């Protein structure tokens, strides 16, 4: 059975919410990039916007944009989030700590539930089928996508909305500090991939995709989404090869490769060079200098891959190594703290 990406929407630090690659990327100096946000009032009914947390606004807006473009209305919702609703989580933790415990507002508690977004989308769009949330760091999007494929295969769903979301917060930033994940000095995002220092910059964003069992005219097929626990530095080349073989693909079939290079001197080459060498003639695209590093950033790559397969040229600012010209089959590889993941998409 084949699965098709029939709609996609992305909010991230670049102005991608308009649906195309921006001509000029946003360039700023700092330790993190914030999401470029659309005018939410134009997308989300204003009455609902009140008291809505940052992550909910990003997620609901991206889900609306995605559903509105989809030819088929999704009947199920699966969200993957690396860290969940950290701002409200921290807010309620702090108020419990500071007390008095007897007088707390329930709003941040409600909004701290990691499946709040999936529930809110269901409520706002009245989608009453299967509703799932994966909370799984860098493997969250891949779990959500493979669950969606299983759901379509079973016939439980004909079109599933899959989302990937993470928000920047002081808490989510600090959590990664002990792992040397961040730069010590502010850096311009566009020079990040030089990887001349250790660490990366943080980002945030929400990417949503409608996955259907029927193609639309773009005919973009979601072939595979897989993840693997990995506790050491380095890439599992054999695992990637096996995955290709499982889908009757060879390394020659891959025209474009998206890598999760994040500008970290200590890990970038160890995590990606071997995989890049597997595909010597492929064009290599990178995106974390545009989006920043966050657990579900591979959604940025997936959105870009969908654009490229729909006929948009990969912008020069996202080209890491020039290679094959016509993209037909694209592999996305991400190597992150504790896990590796692969997504494969192709023009059907």
């Amino acid at each position, binding site marked *: 059975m084949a699965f098709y990406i029939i709609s996609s929407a992305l909010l991230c630090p670049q102005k991608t919410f308009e649906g195309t690659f921006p001509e000029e990327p946003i360039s700023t100096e700092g330790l993190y990039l914030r999401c470029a946000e659309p005018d939410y009032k134009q997308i989300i009914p204003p009455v609902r916007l009140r008291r809505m947390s940052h992550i909910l606004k990003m997620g609901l807006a991206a889900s609306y944009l995605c559903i509105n473009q989809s030819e088929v209305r999704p009947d199920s919702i699966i969200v993957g989030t690396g860290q969940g609703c950290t701002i409200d989580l921290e807010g309620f*933790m702090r108020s419990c700590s500071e*007390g008095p*415990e007897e007088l707390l507002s329930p709003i941040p508690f409600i909004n701290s539930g*990691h499946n709040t977004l999936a529930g809110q989308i269901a409520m706002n769009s009245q989608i009453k089928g299967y509703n*799932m949330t994966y*909370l799984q760091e860098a493997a969250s999007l891949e779990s959500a996508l493979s*669950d969606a494929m299983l759901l379509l295969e079973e016939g439980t769903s004909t079109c599933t909305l899959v989302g990937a979301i993470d928000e920047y917060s002081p808490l989510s930033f600090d959590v990664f500090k002990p792992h040397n994940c961040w730069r010590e000095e502010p850096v311009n995002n566009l020079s990040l991939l030089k990887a001349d220092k250790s660490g990366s910059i943080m980002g945030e964003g929400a990417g949503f995709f409608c996955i259907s069992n029927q193609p639309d005219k773009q005919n973009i097929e979601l072939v595979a989404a897989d993840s693997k626990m990995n506790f050491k530095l380095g890439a599992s080349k054999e695992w990637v090869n096996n995955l290709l073989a499982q889908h009757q693909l060879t390394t020659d079939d891959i025209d474009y490769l998206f890598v999760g290079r994040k500008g970290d001197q200590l890990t970038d080459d160890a995590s990606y060079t071997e995989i890049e060498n597997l595909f010597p003639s492929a064009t290599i695209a990178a995106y974390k200098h545009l989006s920043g590093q966050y657990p579900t950033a591979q959604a940025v790559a997936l959105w870009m891959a969908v654009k490229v397969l729909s006929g948009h040229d990969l912008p020069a600012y996202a080209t890491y190594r020039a290679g094959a010209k016509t993209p037909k089959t694209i592999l996305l590889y991400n190597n992150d703290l504790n896990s590796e993941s692969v997504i494969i998409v192709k023009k059907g």
Partner: protein
Amino acid sequence: MNRVFVTGIGAISAIGNNVAEQLQALQQGTSNIAPAKLLKSTLKLPVAEIPFSNKELTSLAELPTEETFSRTFLLGLIAAKEALKTANLTDRSDLQFISSSTNAAIEITENIYKNPEEHLPLLRYFHANQIPLDIAKELGICGRQYTISTACSSSANGIMLATRLIRSGKAKRVLVGGNDSLSRFSINGFNALEIASVNGCRPFDKNRDGVSLGEAGAYLVLESEEAAKGKHVYGEIKGFANVNEAYHATSTSPDGKGAKQAINDALAVANLTVSDISYINAHGTGTKINDLSESIAISELFGSQTPISSTKGCTGHTLAACGALEAVFSLLAIQEQQVWGNGRLLEPLTETNMNIVRETHSATVNHVLSNSFGFGGNDTSLIFSKI
């Protein structure tokens, strides 16, 4: 389509350290809801606390007691080890792993503001997926891993995913479950929502006044029929369904629409009808709203004959762990041919007329329906069957 068998079960909760102890407690109708001894909260609400310090749990988990671990991790590991042991699973090369907790190790992270120095070594538990990864490492699991977070239906949804993976041939065997420990965070959340019980929870009672939180770790080993060949089988997972009510962020609909849909869908997957269900292990949290809407759904579908009970009067509401814990209880009902008493019930609610099990008794148990509902309108029903 592969059949899915349960070959291993493990659990720790306020009514026992292992499956055998919990079985005994269910048979005797033991409830353990009382003021907290370990949880530090000024709210002084009754809870179902596991009466062991983290150090004692560390030795129960067979880990070095000079090291410090998160309580949520320890509860999960103890239950997961028991499940693997009962399944006699030594070769773990093709084992996949699905787990869940509501907020990772919230019982650690919430203290960071008060005593940062003391909790510094545990900062790693801020990572949402740290507990599952630690459990996987400890048990030598290297297959695919999933972590679900859908509030109180989390581990029921984990069991549903595991079942679907095995049915479709995408997994041969899966270790699946959940873990949550008591935290100031959760108890304050339920209190702020005005659904925390002051008098101790009484699910389906006329005078119920809310939830008593509990803590637990519960894991199951699910295997395909072929992989389970020659093994002791606790039961088969025949039905499952998850739907969203799309009604309210934390409340269930008054007519139990979502619950009815989940139950009906699970019956359809199992190819069973309401009359095939011998016992219902309800979600039954003890809140006014949940218990009424769930009882309306159950009465409408099943009438007043099918035995039903909530075991949360015994164990408290163990949040992300409750789906897996009650899956274990459902399988024990099949094994013992008994239905479990609805702990702490005095006078049943009067709006509906259900056959609530007052005290544990013998019965013919072929198919058990287990409900787990979560915030965000998340409704899950599972059906466990005798083979």
